[in-house]
């Protein structure tokens, strides 16, 4: 029951902002276009290898903003989202860094990987 309560705390007020959540809207899509375009290119293995071989050059080719470049350099997913990144595309970049969606979740919540996984397991318990 404590978990259900914890989740209720994470809902926020109806119609108000959603805690810890950025809706990927037109503003974000416009701001994040270059970063998301780069991530989309990673569907192609050759592009993933080109990024690995020359990260600076590859980011420059896609005209990342300095903020986006710094977010990528620091592997900081929250900063990527703040710079307009969309998680469906960022997941492809995270794959290059060897990060699973659980690693990404742990990083964003400031939890250890084990604690994050335990939270997921506990979510299923009444």
């Amino acid at each position, binding site marked *: 029951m404590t978990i259900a309560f914890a*989740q209720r705390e994470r809902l926020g007020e109806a119609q108000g902002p959603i805690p810890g959540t950025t809706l990927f809207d037109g503003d974000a899509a416009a701001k994040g276009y270059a970063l998301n375009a780069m991530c989309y290119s990673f569907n192609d293995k050759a592009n993933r290898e080109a990024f690995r071989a020359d990260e600076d050059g590859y980011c420059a080719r896609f005209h990342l903003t300095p903020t986006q470049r710094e977010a990528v350099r620091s592997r900081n997913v929250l900063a990527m989202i703040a710079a307009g990144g969309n998680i469906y595309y960022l997941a492809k970049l995270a794959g290059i860094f060897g990060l699973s969606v659980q690693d990404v979740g742990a990083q964003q919540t400031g939890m250890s990987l084990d604690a994050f996984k335990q939270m997921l*397991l506990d*979510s299923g318990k009444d």
Partner: protein
Amino acid sequence: MARIIGGYFTSHVPSIGGAIVRGDQQTPYWKPFFDGYPPVREWLAEEKPDVAVCFYNDHGLNFFLDKMPTFAVGAAEVYHNEDEGWGLPVFKSFEGHPALSWHIIEQLVNDEFDITTCQSMLVDHALSIPFELVYPDAPAWPVKLVPIAINTVQFPLPSARRCLALGQAVHRGLESWQGDERIVVIGTGGLSHQLDGERAGFINPDYDRFCMDSLANDPEALVADTTKEIVRKSGSQGVEILNWIAARGALGEGGFREKTRNYHVPISNTAAATMVLEPA
């Protein structure tokens, strides 16, 4: 006359594909999830559908943000999967059913849905995984595909009410189709999950249960909320429930009963669910 045999609803988490490739179905982590599928397989083996009309969302394989259709209907001869960025094994291709696709497109536009039509369309794990789960040993998929993609990625998303209405228009198209196919309607994605932000890992079993309980005979209950309120209750990617809602619409207005249901938390970061509805 074509016949709708019922609806199959399932989550489509990418890591399920990895578990299948590794043969992890019976491991303690995966077993409670995979145990949901034998009843679906038995149902499909009995009902033998020839066509699947499948509502799903693309995750950045076919559509990028340069052109993002709200609703897109495939009308291709064949649909291929490709590398989605993780270098995983590529899934089997689907044979299309262009004649039925165009018939549905005619119906939708006639009903004032201004859709995008796609004669070339890659399909991602959101389509492949639901088929891998229920036809695990098939050398080729035994059904032809009509894929219908809903934007669940970039706001503004279509409202849940609009998705239900889209599905209802697809149903009218299926009713007037003169072929004698047996059709299964599929909705993929969800249930509650959130990959991004400080709220990553959010799962809401109460809301998921409400969705599953309402699906058969009270779909109107699912469309009362705005998409933003659905994100609040279901997570930023839990909003993929829109695909289920559209698929429910495509089943038509009659009563339905649950043939099977499975719900398991977590698979990866997701509350995973499987349901089959058949006419009551």
